[in-house]
């Protein structure tokens, strides 16, 4: 038994299993609070630390809410509908959590205790980390379908089919916008991509990087079923979509899986476009890298919550049209622009040239986006109301 290896593996994996679920617990509280503020409510503010059994709580702005929610979920009855496929009904929530947890290990989180020379855990810095990430997040779709199909409920199945169609469609712009960075760095290795952006050389500051980041973020929202793309769980149309028939801890697993997937995909966005662990002071204090990485992930999550409180839900045809008619052509164009920009930069070193390329690329991308929008809108007939005025 190689105890040293086992110790190293634990040092590399346990932080992931501690940090992200605890971030999940905090995020649920932050989300409820933020949405409440956006909707001019107060949100959870009672649950805190119970000091005495007879009241007199330390409320702490309702920070005890996640724990209370967790306890509630644990003690709820586990209901399996009659006629449901029991095995698949059980497997689906587990299968939705596993890929989300698994992809966390491909993120280039440089924990300070893993930088030792003799440390043997370099396996996570896989050569094909980015493609591994996409392959494994793709499995999430299957869990969603499994849940929808096994529940033996029309709304569940509708939600599952919606989820599959949406995830498959948005996976293409997601991967194509990540391809740009992979192409420029010349590596699929997440650590190398992070290294290439050291010293404020973040790809989001490039015109193609900015466009790719925006496309990536939108596609990531759709991929994790976040509002405004939360059609698979649109409660006004299909109850709760694929997890209509789930209760208790199975539902909690779905919930956890969804949030972990959000963290994972935000982590990938940070790796690809926002300079991974880069930030002020990392040269002097390398352990700041983890802090910066997680801070950037939190900012992206914050934007997701903000969007959820702001934007209304899309219609199904709008959703598919947006992926195929707008994001896909734009991300393909973006690949070409990134190639041209890279060659122009390689051919001549001057600052003037790079500024011209920067501006030209941005103008082309903006014009393309406007043009696509115009073409797509031209096909939409003006809306006629049957009953309204």
């Amino acid at each position, binding site marked *: 038994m190689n105890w040293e290896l086992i110790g190293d593996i634990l040092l590399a994996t346990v932080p992931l299993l501690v940090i992200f679920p605890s971030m999940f617990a905090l995020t649920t509280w932050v989300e409820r609070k933020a949405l409440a503020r956006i909707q001019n409510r107060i949100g959870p503010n009672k649950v805190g630390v119970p000091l005495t059994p007879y009241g007199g709580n330390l409320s702490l702005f309702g920070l005890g809410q996640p724990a209370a929610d967790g306890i509630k979920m644990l003690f709820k009855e586990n209901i399996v509908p009659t*006629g449901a496929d029991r095995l*698949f009904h059980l497997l689906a929530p587990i299968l939705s959590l596993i890929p989300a947890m698994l992809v966390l290990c491909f993120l280039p989180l440089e924990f300070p205790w893993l930088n030792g020379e003799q440390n043997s855990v370099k396996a996570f810095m*896989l*050569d*094909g980390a980015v*493609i*591994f990430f*996409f*392959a*494994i997040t*793709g*499995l999430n*779709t*299957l869990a969603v*379908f*499994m849940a929808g*199909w096994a529940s*033996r409920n*029309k709304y569940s*199945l509708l939600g599952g*089919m919606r989820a*599959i169609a949406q995830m*498959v469609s948005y996976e293409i712009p997601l991967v194509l916008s990540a391809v740009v960075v992979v192409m420029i760095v*010349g*590596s*699929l*290795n997440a650590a190398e991509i992070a290294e290439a952006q050291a010293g404020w050389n973040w790809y989001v500051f490039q015109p193609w990087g900015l466009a790719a980041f925006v496309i990536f973020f939108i596609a990531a929202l759709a991929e994790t079923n976040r509002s405004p793309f939360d059609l698979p769980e649109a409660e006004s149309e299909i109850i709760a979509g694929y997890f209509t028939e789930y209760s208790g801890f199975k539902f909690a697993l779905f919930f956890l899986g969804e949030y972990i997937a959000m963290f994972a995909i935000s982590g990938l966005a940070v790796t690809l476009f926002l300079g991974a662990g880069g930030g002020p002071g990392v040269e002097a204090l390398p352990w700041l890298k983890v802090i910066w990485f997680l801070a950037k992930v939190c900012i992206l999550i914050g934007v997701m919550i903000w969007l959820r409180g702001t934007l209304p839900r899309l219609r199904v045809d709008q959703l598919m049209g947006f992926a195929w008619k707008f994001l896909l052509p734009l991300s393909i164009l973006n690949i070409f622009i990134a190639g041209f920009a890279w060659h122009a930069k390689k051919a001549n070193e001057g600052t003037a040239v790079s500024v011209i390329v920067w501006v030209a690329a941005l103008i082309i991308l903006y014009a393309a986006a406007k043009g696509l929008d115009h073409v797509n809108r031209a096909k939409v007939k003006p809306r006629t109301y049957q009953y309204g005025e």
Partner: protein
Amino acid sequence: MNEVTAFWILAAISVIGALVAVRKRNLVHGVFALLVFFAGLAGLFLLLLAEFIAVVQILVYAGAVGILILFAIMLTDRVTGKDAFRVTSRGSFWGAIIALAVFLVILLPTIREIPLIENATPKDMIVEQSSVKELGTKLIEPYIVTIEVLALLLTAALIGAVTAAQGGRASEKGENTE
């Protein structure tokens, strides 16, 4: 756990997955068994140090092909009701005989050559060297024509699939209006 144990576990997973996939009467169960088979095979590829092929296997088969098949099943059979998924099989006796015969025919040369190949040990791979990068260079340098032809094939398949799947729609619409 050494390599041999891993091999036997993965082999068992893929054989059972494949058997269930072809024998299960419930089609959706069959598809998930097929996915288990693909996953087992990806594990075997990892065991053979072909990590890129393993990940492509997961990406293409478990990700894309599995979902495509599920979509097709949802579009072709009645979606609700377990009985609608039952498919009858016929000729499994002769099928089994032929499959067994083919198996023996394939097996014979392998068994005959065992003394020759059992000493063939895998060469030590240089793990530090990026095999993904190597593969990419190979795809550009000697195999560029193959890649282009493949791209053409995939485009043709895409267009063909869309036309084939959409072709019936016009006539169906006609049927409905009549």
